[in-house]
């Protein structure tokens, strides 16, 4: 489970690559700011597939008609209802296929794709949050270490933080301060010490983002849009993460607040962190991100620098070029295929 070309043993080989000019490297091209701290990516996802096991309705239907046909011929051999219940056929539905994605230190990678195309599942996979019926395959490295589900779970809230979309992700019945501080870890004395440390860190973050101490005593529904945005950011920053996964942080905010939310993420990235910005809004993504991963039908079809969106000739995948054409400053051309296959609304 060691990334072949990025192993710390041969960092020179990788660093000696001319990132600006080499067209492809690890399935992606680089932006000017993409840095390889310690000779590896902050996050690398390779060949990730997520599938769900579910009962196959069509197969059950087929089986039933088949059984009905059999029953007419040999009524004695019809299986019991219990047996049919136990033997209900299942199938796998793959939602994410063969996905590759990398996040470098100091950059924002925008994962841009239609709503409902599985982007949130990608966030869940990186956080190691799996539904019980999910089958997740692939390789994930975080900060140079190969990760499995348990390792990813251990990084949650520490190395990797989630910044959710809205205050709906906060417990409606718990005061904001306690929620930002999160659950203290450890036992007895260690737990109390951790709680104190968290309260201290929370005060520090509130001060940094201009949140009054009184906000800590409010309930989530009492927050204004601007306060909510900063509170969610403080939640993400509590554990001093290296990587923030921001899941659609801008919908519901007006333009001014959205721009400021992204500016805060930019500041985090400029401080050496990495951001995976999941969004459906390519215009907003192009203003703030360093690189764009074009997400479509459950996979990343192209991972490229924002600069490539200056000219469609620099974009490799036809869907990316369609996106380029769909931008307002271009010709608004929405081709039939885009309407049919890529854009549900």
């Amino acid at each position, binding site marked *: 489970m060691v990334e072949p070309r990025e192993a710390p043993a041969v960092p020179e080989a990788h660093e000696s690559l001319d990132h600006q000019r080499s067209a492809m490297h690890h399935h992606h091209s680089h932006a000017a700011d993409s840095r390889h701290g310690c000779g590896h990516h902050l996050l690398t996802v390779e060949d990730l597939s997520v599938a769900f096991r579910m009962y196959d309705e069509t197969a059950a239907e087929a089986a039933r008609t088949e059984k009905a046909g059999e029953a007419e011929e040999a009524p004695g051999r019809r299986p019991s209802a219990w047996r049919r219940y136990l033997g209900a056929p299942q199938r796998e539905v793959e939602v994410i296929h063969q996905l590759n994605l990398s996040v470098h230190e100091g950059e924002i990678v925008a994962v*841009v794709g*239609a*709503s409902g195309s599985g982007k949130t599942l990608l966030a869940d996979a990186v*956080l190691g949050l799996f539904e*019980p019926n999910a089958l997740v395959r692939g390789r994930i490295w975080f900060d140079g270490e190969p990760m499995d589900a348990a390792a990813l*779970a251990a990084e*949650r*809230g*520490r190395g990797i*933080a989630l910044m*959710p979309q*809205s*205050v*709906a*992700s*906060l*417990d*409606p*019945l718990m005061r904001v301060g306690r929620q930002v501080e*999160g*659950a203290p*870890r450890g036992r007895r004395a260690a737990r109390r010490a951790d709680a104190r440390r968290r309260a201290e860190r929370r005060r520090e973050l509130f001060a940094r*983002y*201009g949140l009054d101490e*009184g*906000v800590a005593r*409010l*309930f989530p*529904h*009492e*927050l*204004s*849009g*601007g*306060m*909510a945005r900063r509170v969610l950011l403080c*939640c993400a920053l*509590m*554990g001093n993460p290296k990587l923030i996964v921001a899941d659609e942080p*801008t*919908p*519901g*905010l*007006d*333009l*001014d*607040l*959205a721009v400021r939310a992204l500016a805060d993420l930019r500041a985090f990235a400029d401080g050496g962190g990495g951001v995976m910005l999941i969004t*459906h*809004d*390519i*215009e*907003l993504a192009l203003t703030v991100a360093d690189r764009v991963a074009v997400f479509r039908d459950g996979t990343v079809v192209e991972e490229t620098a924002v600069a490539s969106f200056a000219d469609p000739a620099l974009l490799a995948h036809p869907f990316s070029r369609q996106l380029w054409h*769909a*931008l*307002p400053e271009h010709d608004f051309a*929405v081709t039939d295929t885009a309407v049919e296959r*890529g*854009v549900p*609304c």
Partner: protein
Amino acid sequence: MVKYIASQIGRFALLLLAVAVVTFALVSLSPVDPLQANVGQAALLGMSEEKRAALAAWWGADTPMHERFIAWAGGLLQGDMGTSLRYNAPVADVIASRAANSLVLMAAAWVVSGMLGFALGVAAALNEGRLIDRFVKGYCFILAASPTFWVGLLLLMVFSVWLGWFPLGFSVPVGVAAADVTFADALHHMALPAITLSVVGVANVALHTRAKALDVLASDYVRFARARGEHRGQAMVRHGLRNLVLPALTLQCAQIAEIFGGSVLVEEVFSYPGLGQAAVTAGLGGDVALLAGIALVSAALVFAGNLAANVIYGLVDPRMRPVRKLARATAAVGVPSAGATFGPSASPEASAVETTPPIPPASDERTPR
């Protein structure tokens, strides 16, 4: 607030009026002859025609229903609930002596079924699809489908008759002077009826809590809590319980009616001298004053339960309270120093709803979504 209290009192008065009218109407329609029921077949046959007529006149059996009702209601307004035919004592006294027994029984059942149901529901939700969950669901479905009196009879058979752990009935031991009855005796007699009521009452709360807990586990805030490193159980304790207790408590308050109804059957099965048994006696004996009195008391009890649920919700859930001044004050203070262009802030409700992105409105058709 004054308006709320006044409206609640008004509702309460209307409810009691309706309950009293319906009780009176039903009793006067019932074919039970109060003379026959209360004097006894043999004694009635031995009485002369005049004596019977005199007794009927004395009890007012021939007075039309509405006149009796008005007389009774007038007395009630003066604090007189009438006299019980069956117990030959003031209704208030009969109810007071019975209610003490019943209320203890019902309170025990209410608390035990509530806590047990809540715990089972949470445990089932945390182990969804596993053995515990199946066991809890099966238990609840069976109990929800079985009549209370039947469960009572079953428990009586197993634990009193076969195993002999509990007495067969009554609230105190037979043949013991009232002064010698200990608290332990009373508890021992109350145990089996209380267990019956609790066991049957669990189903509702457990199934409801289970469904609600599954919602909570799938909610955005538990997903976020888990994304911050809390595991499922931890998130359940930290965020789930506070969101589950309120609905469960509301349901349990509304459940008082069920428990009261159950207690009528259980008291009958266990010969437990409570309100429920008195109600059955009053109904069979055409004792309209006692029946109406018990109906009023139980209506008041159920009403109080529902009112408590409403009030608790208002007091405990911060979302039900009016927006506090602090919120507005801090909103003004909370603007960062650089924020001269603090935009019209979207309310949290607005941001929770899927709104169109803030970028030019026409962009909807162009950007891939």
